[in-house]
């Protein structure tokens, strides 16, 4: 029993790692294509049909590039920072049920690595740790822009993390559990949480943009102000790890939003599973969509938004939820 469980878990981990590393690559392809179409361009076209093999070309480029550790950096921290970003992104995935459980060759598979009872807390905590990647990488880089980026990262972190935590407090109060599977079960009988908690949904969605560092909260690595921020001094696969972490995070947070607020995979039928993937695809697309449409905010504006607008709204939302539940 123990061995079987161990083997099963390892296989799940490997499958999730492989699928989402590949998805992160394909995500960059979709991002380029979607942005290009929205800006009346064609995007990558030359490598493979419709530029589909661009991902492979990028991969080869990143893997074979010289790994440069500039002089003057704090080498150890500089080297470990990208690993933190990528590793925490995947570690957070451990508590996400990607699909309803299904039977494969007479064996029941639960597509979740560990259904721990503090699921959502664990996910948010690990994703929060992921910010140490940009922070440490930026501070260790001995580069002005990287340093600014690290400082911004810290400022952003303390702002949005409050909103994330407070906004999902109300749904957690309703469900009475922190496990994403319990969230899913709750929504089968009680309808989608987004209808009961629209404010919390929007707040969490906004915070997700800050969490993943996407436009309009892309200020940690804004190309037009601070080059690539914490990534300025990185090259080759170290930079690639940052990118994989960012895109994997986008996918995972899309899963989390769908599971928390939009009914997840529903009753666990095939249709429900497809619906979940559809919801995830929409949220991922929305990340790209806003990047084409919206401007970036300044760090002070983000802090203003989080502390003076979103946090009070979240607190009021919790109080009202509490009163209604009483």
């Amino acid at each position: 029993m123990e061995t079987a469980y161990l083997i099963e878990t390892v296989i799940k981990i490997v499958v999730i790692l492989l699928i989402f590393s590949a998805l992160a690559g394909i995500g960059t392809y979709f991002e380029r294509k979607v942005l290009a179409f929205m800006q009346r361009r064609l995007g990558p076209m030359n490598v493979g049909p419709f530029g589909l093999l661009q991902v492979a070309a990028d991969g080869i480029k990143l893997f074979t590039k010289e790994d440069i550790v500039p002089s003057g950096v704090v080498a150890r921290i500089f080297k470990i920072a990208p690993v933190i970003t990528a590793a925490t992104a995947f570690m957070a995935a451990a508590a996400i049920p990607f699909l309803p459980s299904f039977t494969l060759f007479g064996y029941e598979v639960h597509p979740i690595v560990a259904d721990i009872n503090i699921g959502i807390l664990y996910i948010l905590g690990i994703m929060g740790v992921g910010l140490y990647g940009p922070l440490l990488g930026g501070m260790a880089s001995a580069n002005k822009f990287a340093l600014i980026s690290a400082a911004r990262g810290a400022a952003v972190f303390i702002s949005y993390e409050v909103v994330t935590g407070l906004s999902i407090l109300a749904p957690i109060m309703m469900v009475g559990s922190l496990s994403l599977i319990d969230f899913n079960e709750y929504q089968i009988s009680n309808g989608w949480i987004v209808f009961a908690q629209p404010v919390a949904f929007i707040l969490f969605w906004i915070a997700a943009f800050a969490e993943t560092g996407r436009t309009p909260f892309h200020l940690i690595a804004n190309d037009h102000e601070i080059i690539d921020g914490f990534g300025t001094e990185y090259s080759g696969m170290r930079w690639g790890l940052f990118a994989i972490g960012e895109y994997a995070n986008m996918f995972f947070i899309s899963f989390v939003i769908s599971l928390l607020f939009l009914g997840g995979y529903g009753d666990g039928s095939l249709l429900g599973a497809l619906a979940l993937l559809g919801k995830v695809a929409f949220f991922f697309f929305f990340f790209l969509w806003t990047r084409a449409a919206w401007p970036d905010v300044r760090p002070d504006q983000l802090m203003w938004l989080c502390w003076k607008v979103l946090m009070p709204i979240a607190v009021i939302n919790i109080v009202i939820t509490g009163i209604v539940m009483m």
Partner: protein
Amino acid sequence: MNNEQFNDRNVSNDYFLVDIEDYPTDGWGKFKRVIKRSFRGELFVGLWVVLREMIRFDIHTVKYPEEKMPIGPRYRAVHEMKRLWESDTERCIGCGLCEKICISNCIRIDTKIDENSRKEVSEYSINLGRCIFCGYCAEVCPELAITHGGEYENASDQREHFVMYEDMLTPLDKMKAATQLEFEGFGAITPHEDERVKKTPLAY
């Protein structure tokens, strides 16, 4: 003189003055502006605009190496040496004016007296690595011999990149086919410019 014709701008009605509100000075005004901006849905207008463009799929990309935009007749790219229409002989008389006027000193010309006691160009080269494509040589040439062509793909693996007389000269078979193009040059009007020109509501 009567300026009436010029003062009648006769512009289309699509132009309008943008209504710009005064900047709020007090806290209450700023607060009202925040509320207004938050709930007017401007962000969704932006989202709709880019989605609309994506659905329309009106792509403007020119796939450059395979497709090329036509270039205007004034465009000054790599030089060409023209021939006379009547006799197919070279137009250049070796006067050396182009070498003299070239502000980056990149034309080198050498002449000699040929067997008929006529001046003949023996050496002529332009260093494209130095040429700034100012067009002075084409402007000064009394014979309309040196002109600019439309060949702009002149990337080279080294800075010194020479183009020689024989390479610039219109090939004889092109002369036989009468397909030598004259350089319209300075002040030439881009084709179809009349259709594209628009009036703007600015006063003179």
